[in-house]
């Protein structure tokens, strides 16, 4: 029995070519993973983090705003946060205060307790993108991840 096991090990593990292959595979996997370290985990900004979750508090924007008593207008916003500009204009000239300052405050006030910082390792680049070639910092955006209900009917487009 021992001889069979020894032979088996020799056949599959001790072959130099097999080991070399495994080492190469490891190096390739490392290179691929290293390349992905620059991948953006939150390409759509708000809606990449603010999701329904499983068995947890619904953190989608519409649910959060509902809990805060925000009007239903947010339900009709298709692209987040671009559509929020309808009321929360960046210029500050809209009917509601500029979104930028509100969002910064929501994510950075009391950084020792704020979940964005303490639990989610919040960084500017979760919400902003940097185009290194042009040097322009932009705000990421993405389509809403909820289905608005208007007059009891789901709006799907």
């Amino acid at each position, binding site marked *: 029995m021992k001889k069979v096991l020894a032979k088996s090990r020799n056949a599959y593990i001790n072959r130099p070519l097999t080991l070399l292959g495994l080492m190469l595979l490891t190096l390739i996997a490392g290179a691929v993973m290293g390349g992905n370290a620059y991948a953006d985990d939150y390409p759509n900004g708000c809606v990449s983090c603010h999701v329904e979750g499983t068995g947890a508090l619904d953190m989608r924007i519409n649910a959060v705003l509902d809990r805060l008593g925000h009007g239903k207008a947010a339900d009709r916003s298709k692209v987040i946060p671009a559509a929020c500009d309808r009321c929360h204009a960046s210029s500050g000239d809209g009917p509601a205060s500029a979104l930028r*300052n509100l969002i*910064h405050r929501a994510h950075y*006030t009391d950084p*020792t307790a704020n979940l964005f910082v303490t639990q989610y390792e919040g960084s*500017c680049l979760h919400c902003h993108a940097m185009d*290194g070639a042009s*040097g*322009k*910092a932009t705000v990421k955006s993405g389509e809403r991840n909820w289905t608005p209900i208007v007059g009891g009917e789901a709006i799907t487009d």
Partner: protein
Amino acid sequence: MKDRIRVFSLSAITALLAVTALAQADDYPQGCVDCHAQQPGKTNLSLNALLAQIGHPKLPKVKKVPTSCGGCHASDEGEDNEFAHMIHQIHYDVPKANLYTTRFGGDCLHCHAMDADSGEALVKSGPRNW
């Protein structure tokens, strides 16, 4: 024995809070000049040295960096010469090779500060170090 446990617990909590406070401290409160400094035995990375290398005119009027740079470099949106874009380019172009991101762990908050009360993102500044 209970007193000892209380004292030990209080000490441990205090130490943890101190460590947390240190972790939250800003290592670059003055922005540019906190990183761009001349250190003994190392390449001179101060801004006047770097700018001299690329043929930039001398900077006799610059007292506060980068505030004084605004004397020539407009920061208005839409300007081709917008200073913000240029500084972003220098620090973020080709992130896999850019020393700011690869060696110095470059982060927006090295140069910017967040005023959480007002929600304004600011540009840090400090007196020139040359």
